[in-house]
C-alpha cells in the first residue's frame, strides 16, 4: 500500500431533515470515495419505533431510500460507496426498500448490507436479569422508575460490523444506531488496514467523524464569524481526505460556497464537547487536547497528532420513554404595554381553563414572552417596552385532554382581551407526547452485532 494513498469521505447529511442538496451535489461536484449519512438523533429512534408499531415495514429513514434512487447511478459510475445509519429500528425494512428502488431504477450489480444487533428493545428484561442496571447515566436513577414506559432502546455500536460489511464487498451499508463517528472511521480501517487496537488511528478516524457529522457546520455553517463566509446559499458539504498515518485534511469541493478555516473546523470540534481528554466512543477514547490544526491552503485545514486510548468495556445505550405531554400556542402582541397585555392574556387563559374544570398547577405552566430577551436572559439588557412580542404559552402534564383545553382558549383571546393581539397561525394547538431520553451503559459482552449482505 502506498503511503500517499488518500481516502475521501464526505458527509452528506448532518441530521434527519438536512438538505437534500448535500448528497445530490457531493456526488456530482468533486471526488468522493465514501458518502456517509447521519440520520439518528436521540429522539429519532423513538419516532421510528412508533412508526414501526403502526406499520411493521416502517421504522427507518424513508427519505434516505428515495434520495438513494437519485444518486445511485452516479455512485455506480464513480464507485462511491454509501454508509448510513438510516436503518433506525428496522434495518431489514430499509434493506428491502433499497432493493426495491435499485430494481425500479433499472440498476443492478449492487451489494447492499445491513448491520443488526444494536436494537435491544426486546431484550431489556433479559438483560436486566443478567445484571445490567441501565441506571440513568446523567441522574443515576434506576430504570425501574420508567421501565413500563420505555419506547426504544438502542446501543451505540462501533465500526467493526461496518468494516466486515466492506470486506464482504458491500456498496451500500445501512446500520441502526451506529455511533456517528464510526460511520466515518470504518472505511478508514478497511482502506488502510488499520488494526482496531491502534487507538491513535481509531481516535483520528473518530475525530474526523466528529468534524463531519453535522454536515455544513464545519464549512462555515453556524459560525460566529459568519460575515467572512462567502456564498452561504451554495455552502459546500465537508470532504475529508484521510491518509494512512491518521492525519487528514478537511476541505470542500471547488466552486462551492462556505469557508474551511482553522476557525470553522475548530468551532465544530468544540460542538457538543464534554471532557476533551475523554471523548468516549465505542471504538476508543479520543483526546481532543492532542489535536493539531493548521491551514493548508485555501479552504483546506490539516488535522494531525491525534492520540487515543482503549475504549471502555461498555457501550452507551440510548433509551427513550413516554414522559407525559406538552402543549404550546403562540400569539403576537403589539405595544404599547405589550408585556402587561401578554401577562394579562396568560392569566386569562389559565382562569378560563379553570372554568372548564381543568386545573393546571402553577409549576406545569409555561410562559415565554419572545422579544424580552428569552434567549439571552440576563446576558444583555432587555427592552422593557417592546413594540411587539410573541407570547409562547403552554404547559406540561400527564393528562393530554386537560392540556388540549388550553389549546381551545388561546385564539379567543384576540376578541376577548386587550387590543393589538394578532398573528395566530397554524390552527388550534394540540398536546403532543413528550419523549424522555434515558442514557445508560451496557457491558460490551452482552451485545453481538451481525451483518446481512444481499446482491441486487
Amino acid at each position, binding site marked *: 500500500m502506498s503511503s500517499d494513498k488518500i481516502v475521501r469521505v464526505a458527509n452528506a447529511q448532518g441530521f434527519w431533515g438536512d438538505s437534500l442538496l448535500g448528497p445530490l451535489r457531493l456526488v456530482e461536484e468533486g471526488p468522493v470515495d465514501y458518502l456517509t449519512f447521519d440520520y439518528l438523533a436521540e429522539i429519532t429512534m423513538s419516532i421510528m419505533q412508533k412508526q414501526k408499531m403502526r406499520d411493521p415495514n416502517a421504522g427507518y429513514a424513508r427519505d434516505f431510500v428515495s434520495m438513494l434512487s437519485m444518486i445511485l447511478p452516479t455512485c455506480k459510475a464513480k464507485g462511491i460507496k454509501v454508509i448510513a445509519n438510516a436503518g433506525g429500528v428496522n434495518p431489514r425494512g430499509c434493506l428491502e426498500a433499497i432493493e426495491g428502488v435499485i430494481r425500479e431504477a433499472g440498476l443492478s450489480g449492487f451489494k447492499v448490507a445491513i448491520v443488526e444487533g444494536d436494537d435491544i428493545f426486546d431484550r431489556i428484561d433479559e438483560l436486566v436479569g443478567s445484571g445490567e442496571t441501565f441506571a440513568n447515566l446523567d441522574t443515576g436513577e434506576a430504570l425501574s422508575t420508567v421501565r413500563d414506559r420505555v419506547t426504544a432502546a438502542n446501543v451505540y455500536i462501533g465500526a467493526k460490523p461496518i468494516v466486515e460489511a466492506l470486506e464482504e464487498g458491500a456498496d451500500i451499508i445501512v446500520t441502526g444506531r451506529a455511533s456517528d463517528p464510526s460511520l466515518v472511521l470504518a472505511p478508514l480501517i478497511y482502506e488502510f488496514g488499520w488494526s482496531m487496537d491502534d487507538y491513535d488511528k481509531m481516535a483520528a478516524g473518530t475525530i474526523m467523524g466528529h468534524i463531519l457529522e453535522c454536515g455544513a457546520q464545519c464549512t462555515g455553517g453556524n*459560525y460566529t464569524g459568519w460575515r467572512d463566509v462567502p456564498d452561504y446559499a451554495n455552502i459546500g458539504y465537508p470532504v475529508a481526505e484521510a491518509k494512512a498515518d491518521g492525519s487528514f485534511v478537511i476541505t470542500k469541493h471547488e466552486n462551492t460556497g462556505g469557508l474551511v478555516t482553522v476557525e470553522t473546523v475548530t468551532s465544530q470540534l468544540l*460542538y457538543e464537547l464534554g471532557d476533551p481528554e475523554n471523548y468516549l466512543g465505542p471504538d476508543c477514547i479520543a483526546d*481532543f487536547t492532542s489535536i493539531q490544526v493548521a491551514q493548508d491552503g485555501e479552504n483546506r485545514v490539516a488535522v494531525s497528532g491525534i492520540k487515543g486510548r482503549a475504549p471502555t468495556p461498555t457501550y452507551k445505550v440510548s433509551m427513550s420513554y413516554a414522559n407525559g405531554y406538552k402543549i404550546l400556542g403562540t400569539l403576537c402582541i403589539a405595544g404599547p404595554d405589550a408585556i402587561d397585555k401578554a401577562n394579562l392574556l396568560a392569566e386569562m387563559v389559565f382562569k378560563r381553563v379553570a372554568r372548564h374544570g381543568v386545573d393546571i398547577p402553577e409549576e406545569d405552566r409555561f410562559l415565554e414572552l419572545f422579544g424580552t430577551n428569552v434567549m439571552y436572559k440576563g446576558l444583555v439588557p432587555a427592552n422593557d417596552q417592546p413594540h411587539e412580542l410573541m407570547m409562547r404559552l403552554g404547559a*406540561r402534564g400527564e393528562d393530554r385532554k386537560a392540556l388540549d383545553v388550553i389549546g381551545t382558549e388561546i385564539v379567543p383571546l384576540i376578541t376577548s382581551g386587550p387590543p393589538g393581539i394578532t398573528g395566530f397561525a397554524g390552527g388550534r394547538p394540540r398536546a403532543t407526547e413528550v419523549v424522555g431520553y434515558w442514557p445508560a451503559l451496557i457491558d460490551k459482552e452482552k451485545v453481538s452485532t451481525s451483518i446481512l449482505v444481499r446482491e441486487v
Partner: protein
Amino acid sequence: MARVQLFSIAIARSGDKGAGSNVGIMAKTPELYEFLAANLTADVVKDYFKEICLGEVTRYELPNLQSLNFILEDSLGGGGTETLITDAQGKVHGPGLLHLEMDVPDALLSAA
C-alpha cells in the same frame, strides 16, 4: 486596556449536553488564549449565565486549539426533548457568551 465584547477576540459554538449545554470558545490569537485562560474562569461564566444556567459550570482547557470548553449544567429549562423554551438545545449560548465584556490589554487587541 480597553473594554470589549468577546466577539472581537474570540469565536464560539454551543450545543446541548443532556439537560445542560456546552459552550466552546476559541481565542483569535495565542496571546488572547492566555488572556482568556487566565481571566475567563468558570466562576465568571457561571455569574454571567446565572439566569440561564441553574447548575454548576465546569471549565476544560484545550491550549492546542486556543480554546476553552464550558459545561453549563441545568441550562435548558429541563431536558432537550422535554423543555418548552425556544432555545431548547442551547444553540445561542455560544453567541451569548460573546456578548460578555472584558477589559483586555491594548497590545493583545491590536493583534486580534
